[in-house]
């Protein structure tokens, strides 16, 4: 499912966070949102996910205005993982993943259907957590914990998955593990993925599309090789970088230093 934002303006008190933003996120693609701290990346993601509805302009999910879609209905099509999630310390992985079935249940009908069980099993297997399902989330390593939260979002069986810096605080191997899962979700299951990323090289390697946010607006949008250039890094981040080619032919951006102010 495609997400398209038009003329998006978000204000918090008297402060403008996003100003007349137009951005589109293609169906079945992985799009990375990058930009400096405080540029409005997380705000953009929350508006796209329907978590923040204090905006002017429109967001359309597959042509339907987000404001016209009820909350449970939206949660069956779109899942978001914000930053800094916490669960009660005795929550098990399976319990957490099962919470992903919440939008499919109602006040009175909370029972576990066959469909619920299958969705939970599928989410656990995609994130390779079957062996951990009876473990408490707090007893897991950072990478496993992140996978458990991703599994919860997957149990929603969304068409669109939004992630806010999914690799923050993880060591390099867990970072790659999470990025591989995200890649698999798009390639095997055709999920549309929109993720805020910090690491420019993750964006270069794992995204089909890049959206660069700077100064409350979109600085650039396009294919990674077109957008992620040393010139863009200098203009947006004030960082001097060199584009290198690795032995297997992939492009890598190597930061060299901060450009003189």
């Amino acid at each position, binding site marked *: 499912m495609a997400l398209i934002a038009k003329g998006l303006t978000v204000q918090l008190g008297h402060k403008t966070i996003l100003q007349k933003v137009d951005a589109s996120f293609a169906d079945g693609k992985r799009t990375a949102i990058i930009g400096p701290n405080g540029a409005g990346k997380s705000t953009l993601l929350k508006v796209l996910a329907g*978590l923040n509805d204090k905006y002017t302009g429109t967001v359309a999910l597959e042509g339907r205005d987000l404001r016209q879609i009820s909350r449970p209905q939206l949660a069956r099509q779109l899942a*978001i993982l914000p930053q800094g*999630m916490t669960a009660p310390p005795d929550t098990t992985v399976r319990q957490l993943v099962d919470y992903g079935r*919440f939008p499919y*249940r109602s006040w009175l009908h909370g029972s576990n259907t066959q469909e619920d069980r299958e969705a939970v099993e599928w989410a656990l297997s995609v994130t390779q957590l079957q062996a951990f399902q009876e473990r408490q989330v707090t*007893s*897991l390593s950072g990478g496993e914990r992140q996978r458990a939260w991703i599994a919860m979002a997957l149990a929603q069986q969304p068409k669109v998955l939004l992630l806010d810096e999914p690799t923050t605080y993880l060591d390099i191997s867990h970072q790659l593990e999470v990025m591989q899962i995200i890649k698999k979700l798009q390639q095997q299951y055709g999920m549309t993925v929109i993720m805020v990323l910090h690491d420019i090289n993750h964006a270069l390697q794992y995204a089909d599309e890049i959206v660069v946010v700077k100064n409350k607006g979109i600085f650039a949008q396009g294919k990674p090789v077109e957008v992620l250039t040393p010139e863009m890094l200098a203009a947006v981040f004030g960082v001097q970088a060199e584009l290198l080619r690795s032995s297997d032919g992939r492009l890598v951006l190597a930061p060299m230093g901060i450009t003189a102010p």
Partner: protein
Amino acid sequence: MTKAAVQGDNSIGKLRRISILVIFAALACLGILLSIMKGSVEVPAAEIIQALLGRMTGSHDQIIQNIRLPRTIVAALVGINLSLSGAILQAIMKNPLADPHIIGISSGAGLTGIMVMLLLPGYEYLVTPAAFAGAMGAAVCIYILAWKNGIRPIRMILAGVAVSAFLGAGISALMIFYSDRVHGALMWMVGGLSARSWPQVEMIWPYTLAGFLLAVLGSRHINVLQLGDEIAKGLGMRVELVRLLLTAVAALLAASAVSVVGLLGFVGLIVPHAARLLIGSDYRYLLPASALLGAAVVTLSDTFARTAFAPTELPVGILMAVLGAPFFLFLLRREM
């Protein structure tokens, strides 16, 4: 296996949860039985069972029917209400210190209840409805004051502290101006069950029944709310609506209890914590566990408070605080 793995495998299984519920239920039954048996006149257990089955054969029927039984029922219902209310509030406020005081129940009920007692002597029958109105009024007031583009738990807690301080000033002023009539008011402030009988049972049970059913119905929502507002919203919950409804349920439960027995403290704070330690934070189990443990704690405490210093009857609120405060400190040191 690493240490983390061993800890992780130690999750609370379904069997353990159900056995804890059974133990709590047995404790509640024991509390109720002891509360009917013990007192200035001892009633044998066999006779109580006969009386409860409707066979009025024993010589203690009057005591059981008119004094012990209703008082015990009030104690159990008050324990259930306050514990459920505290358990709900701890989850939806995301704060382990949340209890019915935090939404102004005590200060609101305290002020209006004491007003009636001190300003309108001779209208004691108005104390319960006035306290109920005061409790709900304070809760609504705090909710409105804390509202600004939705409720943030921390704003609600701070608004609660401010409103309670404001109302507390009114209570103190009344007690100073009418210091000659203050005895009844003091008993009310501490919370006690003496002379509570069938009218109080009739007042409180509909709230207990409705509150329990609504809370259990909302237990899956409470579970998801524990993950935080953003996650809950992302999972499709109308967070503001659910929080408002659950706050209302918690307020009604606590207000009905407090208006009947006075400002009984600590039950709403401690019982949910103790239950959570044993049964975990899944509210589908925690809510019934809190209710059963609450009934057990209040009936047992009241029995003890009534008999330990006979013929003087200690208000149960004093005993609860004396036992509750150290227990709470113990939990605090264990958990944090």
